[in-house]
């Protein structure tokens, strides 16, 4: 059994990769979502921008990278720095802040592997067909609903 059998959430909310981070943020707030798939004009998936990826970009680089400063308590709130980073990131293309932890699954991915991938991230995963076009978003709830239904009918 593969991801194809699942009733994935159709891609009603997408942005072109060249949309700005500013636009992505506004759309997330307005539609109350944390993840927006980026799709090219022909429907090909170019990654997912997430509120988490945007938030990370606002942190000082020295805290963001491996081997950096682990605990920022001593810095205080540093609001000017956060706002400065926000301004500098606003105009960047959304494609530059693609969340690398959100990897697409294919329609022919087995359910077990989909469950495995979902368990490693808090984000819904984009589902693509064999041409790389976005088919929909797969959340943990969709998968769990399907499994529950199966167990009750079995």
């Amino acid at each position, binding site marked *: 059994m593969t991801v194809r059998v699942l009733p994935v959430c159709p891609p009603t909310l997408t942005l072109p990769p060249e949309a700005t981070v500013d636009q992505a943020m506004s759309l997330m707030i307005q539609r109350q979502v944390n993840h927006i798939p980026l799709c090219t004009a022909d429907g090909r998936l170019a990654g997912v921008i997430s509120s988490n990826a945007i938030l990370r970009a606002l942190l*000082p*680089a*020295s*805290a*963001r*990278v*491996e*081997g*950096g*400063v682990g*605990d920022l*308590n*001593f*810095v*205080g709130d*540093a609001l*000017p*720095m956060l706002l*400065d980073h926000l301004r500098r990131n606003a105009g960047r293309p959304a494609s530059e802040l693609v969340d690398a932890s959100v990897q697409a699954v294919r329609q022919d991915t087995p359910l077990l592997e989909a469950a495995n991938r979902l368990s490693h991230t808090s984000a819904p995963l984009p589902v693509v067909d064999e041409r790389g076009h976005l088919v929909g978003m797969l959340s943990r709830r969709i998968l769990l609903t399907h499994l529950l239904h199966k167990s009750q009918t079995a």
Partner: protein
Amino acid sequence: MHGAAHTATEVILGLSPLVVALTVFVLTYAVIVTERINRAIVALLGAGVMILTGVLHQNEAFAGIDFNTIGLLTGMMVIVAITQKSGVFQYVAVKAAKLVKADPWGLMVMLALVTALFSALLDNVTTVLLIAPVALLITDALRINPYPFLFAIIFASNIGGTATLIGDPPNIMIGSAVGLTFNQFVVNLAPVALVVLALTMLPLWWFWGRKLSADQDARDQVMAFDERQAITDVRLLKQALAVTALTITGFVFAHSLGLEPATVAMFGAALLLLLRAAGHDAEHQSEQVHKSFAEVEWVTIFFFVGLFVVVAGVEKAGALKIAADALVQFTGGELAFTAYVILWSSAIISAVVDNIPFVATMIPVIQNLGPVVGAENLNTLWWSLALGACLGGNGSLVGASANLVVAGFAERAGAPIRFLPFMLAAFPLMLAGIAVSSLYIGWRYL
């Protein structure tokens, strides 16, 4: 199983031991330079081949490993691995920045001083690993280019490391092989290291410092940093500082007590591990000890082990005696000229290749010069080697591991340090430091 008296050389296929040893040596160093295979693997393979081909007997190989160097490095690495968790490095860096009211040039001077001081007392790599992220954080808050600060940190770490026996691996090796004490290193090298550091800051001021400025609101933001919040564990801090102070006091008195630095460092490490373990159950203890040991840079340690054996092989085969004779031929055995040749050539070689294998090879070469320049004058040559090899590390990004650590971090943080632009500024600046060292050697020892 093995005969301890087995020392007669029986090299495979009846080949000349000199040819076999030199081939293994050159191949080992050539592969290390390419950096295609991890250097610890290469050194251990080279060491194995030295024994398998019969150049060295296994007992001679063991005797060639300087366990004093290994013990000192390992002990200090354990102490630092535990100490860094207390947040003391962030505390000092932030405190230093606030002392100069977050003025950019003042910050650069303070970061250089702090880095040099920590590098003198701990290893350079750990120091920059902890100082560079804080420097980047502060320059980020000040909205200024971090590059000059990272540059200053690299220079200060190598200059500070020059000042003491434990500051830089070449000094550890020299001190251990020759029996020079912690105090002798401080008395002979710290003054010149201080002068070189001060003089290095002048061009940094001219190139960058005088043009740097930060907005008042950005400086206020740094002044609002609370360094006390950086201390994550007060109990750990007290234990770590007490043990570090005790260990350094131990180094100062080690010679008069008839102790080797390795004993002092290992005892300090064991003491700190004990303080951390006290009061915890067996499972927690073993987990904590395992974590502390895991942070030792085993690649460096095994690299040393392998290199010592490879160098013991070429030494036994007589190659280093030949190299020493060639050096004497070139310099005419004259002390001053020999010292300058060692100083400048070590600096230039250490700028482009790892100074650890270079110094490991040079130590027996210089020991062979005793009869020529007079045993009482050998120390002059040791100080020349130490100054050249340590300060030479500043000549390029690959000159010292600390440089690569800073460059790697800067790259990840999106402020990359490029090889060529760095070298164009760093190499002449390094040579200026060597010129100062030449004057110092000439004035003090010749």
